[in-house]
């Protein structure tokens, strides 16, 4: 099932390569259909997912493994547990919404849709993969289209600089992370890139602490760049400010979570000692995101930049949750990841729409838009509320959980984070509302009218609904997440582990050809 989910967009992309470019409408339709079906499949996976463990050998559902590069122990291995099932759903929904928002692309549609579909497939594959190599490979597969899309379809004067910077910066991050992953493979000694094998092997043959302390910073810096961890964040606002709307939605919403997911999925279980040693550092660094970037966001006058910085700031909460290294914090982190995915996609989608309608993203030049654009303004209002952590939206549930998780470990840092979440966040979000939606309508916006086509509203509704649903009843997610988080943390706090893992020799994982039915 996961394989269908991953390959549907990829195959559609391949097929679109052979469709003549005149049939732009057909391409849009095909992309919508592909991402739409993917979304439904992801929803089915999410609903059918049952967090009860299958057995001691594997904690993953919908698992599938095929040999890929045997000599290196690399396989195509996908599966979901509580940690990533929500991310897969979020990715699929955002992908569909992003495809819906792609109507603003009016040139070279063929290439755009192909790239968008590749990106979608890559993202879903990255989040579903249980093989380090596949994980990285799929991420890169999704990342490269981002660069091209920003370069070709980007907007704004800084487009070229942005493309250049984001390409180089993220490539550095990806490479450092790759180095970390390879080092992990080499030092683990399991001769396998398979996550399940590695985890089981590490339970019996823990890696030397020195090696762990060598690999962890590589992963932290590499993933940190990808996630825009302070001080590696400057690419994010610039890049998002210039990216075409669907790209910004997919990247800021979903792809960026790759690094965080990598930290949770790979660094915590495989490098437990280093994770403990570095947790304090991460927690301090995350203040750079939460507080510092919050302050920077306060000074932004461009909507895209503001959202970009706020998105960077939100990453800090996730880091804080991870750094707390307990089940509450990690669950909260995953919850924020999912919530922020929807939120970032929503805000970037709306900002793109606004920029398209008013022709500017300078907040000083807009105003009173709630009156001119009731639906859009209302959606933006809700999105910005969600951004400042209002209860009822999933972000609140996640952030509060993170605070509860981090409080005992890092009280001082949590105090500052709470300040940033409640006050700094409110300051810049409300400032945006004040400039954009409230106040008198300036001349330039006097003629703007809302698009009457109801389908235009679909993506925004689609993104708002999960934010609200998971916000009102977060157990839909947390009940799935926390058993997964517990597994991830099992090796970080071995004392809390109920029973030791069965001893497994490397390369002995059975190959499931058939899908495991839950």
């Amino acid at each position: 099932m996961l394989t269908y989910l991953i390959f549907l967009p990829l195959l559609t992309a391949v097929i679109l390569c052979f469709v003549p470019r005149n049939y732009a409408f057909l391409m849009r339709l095909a992309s919508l259909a592909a991402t739409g079906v993917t979304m439904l499949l992801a929803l089915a996976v999410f609903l059918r997912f049952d967090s009860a463990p299958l057995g001691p050998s594997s904690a993953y559902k919908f698992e599938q493994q095929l040999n890929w590069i045997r000599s290196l122990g690399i396989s195509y291995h996908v599966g979901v547990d509580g940690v990533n099932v929500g991310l897969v759903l979020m990715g699929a929904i955002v992908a569909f919404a992003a495809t819906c928002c792609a109507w603003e692309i009016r040139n070279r549609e063929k290439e755009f849709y192909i790239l968008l579909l590749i990106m979608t497939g890559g993202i879903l594959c990255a989040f579903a993969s249980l093989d380090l190599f596949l994980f990285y490979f799929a991420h890169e597969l999704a990342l490269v289209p981002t660069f091209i899309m920003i370069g070709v379809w980007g907007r704004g004067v800084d487009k070229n600089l942005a493309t250049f910077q984001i390409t180089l910066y993220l490539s550095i991050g990806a490479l450092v992370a790759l180095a970390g992953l390879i080092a992990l493979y080499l030092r683990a000694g399991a001769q396998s890139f398979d996550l399940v094998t590695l985890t089981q092997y590490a339970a019996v043959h823990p890696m030397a602490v020195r090696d762990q302390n060598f690999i962890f910073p590589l992963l932290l810096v590499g993933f940190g760049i990808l996630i825009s961890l302070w001080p590696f964040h400057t690419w994010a606002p610039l890049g998002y400010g210039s990216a075409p709307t669907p790209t910004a939605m997919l990247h800021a919403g979903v792809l960026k979570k790759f690094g965080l997911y990598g930290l949770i999925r790979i660094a915590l279980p495989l490098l437990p000692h280093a994770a403990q040693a570095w947790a304090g550092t991460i927690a301090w660094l995350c203040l750079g995101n939460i507080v510092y970037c919050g302050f920077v966001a306060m000074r932004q006058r461009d909507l895209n930049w503001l959202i970009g910085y706020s998105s960077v700031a939100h990453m800090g909460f996730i880091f804080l949750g991870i750094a707390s290294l307990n089940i509450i914090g990690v669950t909260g982190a995953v919850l924020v990841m999912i919530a922020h995915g929807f939120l970032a996609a929503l805000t970037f989608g709306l900002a793109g729409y606004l920029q398209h309608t008013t022709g500017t993203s300078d907040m000083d030049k807009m105003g009173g838009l709630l009156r001119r654009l009731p639906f859009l303004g209302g959606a933006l209002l809700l999105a910005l509320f969600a951004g400042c952590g209002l209860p009822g939206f999933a972000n609140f549930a996640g952030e509060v959980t993170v605070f509860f998780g981090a409080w005992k470990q890092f009280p001082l840092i949590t105090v500052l984070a709470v300040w940033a979440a409640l006050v700094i966040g409110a300051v810049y979000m409300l400032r945006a509302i004040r400039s954009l939606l409230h106040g008198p309508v300036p001349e330039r916006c006097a003629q703007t009218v809302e698009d009457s086509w109801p389908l235009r509203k679909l993506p925004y509704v689609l993104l708002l609904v999960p934010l609200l649903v998971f916000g009102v009843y977060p157990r839909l997610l947390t009940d799935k997440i926390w058993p997964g988080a517990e597994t991830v943390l099992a090796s970080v706090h071995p004392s809390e582990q109920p029973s030791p893992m069965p001893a497994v020799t490397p390369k002995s994982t059975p190959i499931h050809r058939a899908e495991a039915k839950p």
Partner: protein
Amino acid sequence: MEDHFIENLGWVALLLPLLSAVAITLGGPFGARRAAAKISIGAVALSFVASLILFLYLHLTGQPALAETSFPWLIIGKYGELNNLQFNLGLQLDTLSLVMMLVVTGVGLLIHIYSQGYLAGDPGYSRYFACLSLFTFSMLGIVLADNFLMMFIFWELVGISSYLLIGFWYHKPAAADACKKAFITNRIGDFGFLLGILLVWSVLGSVGFASLKLEAAHPNHFGPVATIAGLLIFCGAMGKSAQFPLHVWLPDAMEGPTPVSALIHAATMVAAGVYMLCRVYFLLSFPGSQALEIIGWIGGFTALLAALIAVQQNDIKRILAYSTLSQLGYMVMAVGSHGPTAAMYHLTTHAFFKALLFLGAGAVIHAMHHEQDIWQMGGLRKKLPVTFWTFLTGTLALCGVPFFSGFYSKDSILAQALKNGSYGLFIIGVLVAALTTFYMARLALVVFWGSARSSAAEHPHEAPGVMLWPLRILAVPSVIGGLLFIEATFEHFFAGGHGEAGTITWAEQLLEPLNASPAAALSGIFAIMVGGAFAGALYWKAASDPLPLRLGWFARAMRNRFYFDELYERVLIPATHELWSRIAQAIDRWIIGGLAVRGASGATEFAGRALRLVQSGSLQTYAFLLVAGVAAVIYCLLAR
């Protein structure tokens, strides 16, 4: 069966307004927009009925509280393990919450009805009622919450609905600024509140009020952090109830429609802080905790400060706003002097008469074509009879004139301060009572007596019935609020259900203050007389305010709200947020973005440009470099 009905009735009362808000928002295409007022009023009316049934049920069965009904909202980890977290959504249905519910839905119902007239014809009519319903929902959530987290959730929701309502006329820059200010100021308070919750949770291991009460019985657990936790939690109240130093938002919040000011910024929401303090009184009054003392002084200071400011305001709603601030300070002071009963008592009566006053002010403003300066009014007594009489009732109740409701509750607070030995607070309380009478008498005299000072004041038109009836209805409890055994009910509750309730008669109740604590009652009455006399002397038929001439700089300071807004805007905010954000932006732009990122890439590019000069195209350079390279390698490998 009946139990289930009663249990679920709480949920019904809570969720009805939410349903109404959702229906109005989403039901636009189905005509819900036009029926907005009816849906909203219907919902709040049903909520009121449900609360009433619940209250009566509780009263008749004599239980201290109904069984809690709760369900888990968020569960992480296995129960009983070290790292586990469980948040419930549950309703606490006891006397405290039910009386508060009655106030919220009752006053709310009247204000909903009033709004129908006040907002008629406004383009945002349906939005208004949707927000109002959302507010009612959130407020009920605070009232009914059985744990800290749920309370915090609704706390925030109240904040946002207040934001939406203050900014209802968002196209007016003043309103748009005011709502922003209100929300952010509240958020500062919430910051402390959430930290307090975290602290309590980490020490006592729970956020539920019931289990906290049990846990707090072990003094060694909580003792060391009791003061700090209490003060942090009080921060929340400080924000919502606009206590010094977070008081600045409330007067600005008057930019919202007047019914909103009445409901939210006078009667209910701002009282939420006081309610919350009473709800968690068991934590604040923890043995060894210094929190209450500090809370009391903050309340007293706020009361005095706001009363002084109110003396020199000219905007009718702002006077009332500062009066609200002052009264809230009073209530907080009551909590601080170990008197949650008195605080809740005053909260209840204050809700009636302050709502009445605001609605009356609204009627005046309506009549004056949205003129709010009292010095443009005058002589409205004859032209707006209903408004005048009801407003006067409210004024008298607020001043605490004997046998009006305010007399009893205010006296209760003063008596509590005396009883507690807080003489400082007692003196402040008396002073504030005098000031209250002074500024309220000033307001009434200038607005309703004298001669018309503007053309609008010469031809005002009385409000429609839909606005006047709520005034008449609210006037009733404002007068007789002191006779409703409210105090006894609360006393019973705070004594943990051990005290005796309902043993006093109406007549005893009527003279209770004089019997119980004559010193407090007499000083209160004396203060009223002094305040009233001064006001009468100064403002009887005054054409302009004589006070600035007599007091000079002090009057100017009062008029300018003692420069707190200026202090915050010019000093505090720049010194904290503005400055830091400038610094952060500069660092981001020049050091991280410039020096580190562009610097690194620039340096690399420069290296490339420099290095390629080696590639000069000269064959012999290449040959030479080849040989030099070989020589270098030989030197490194073989010569050593």
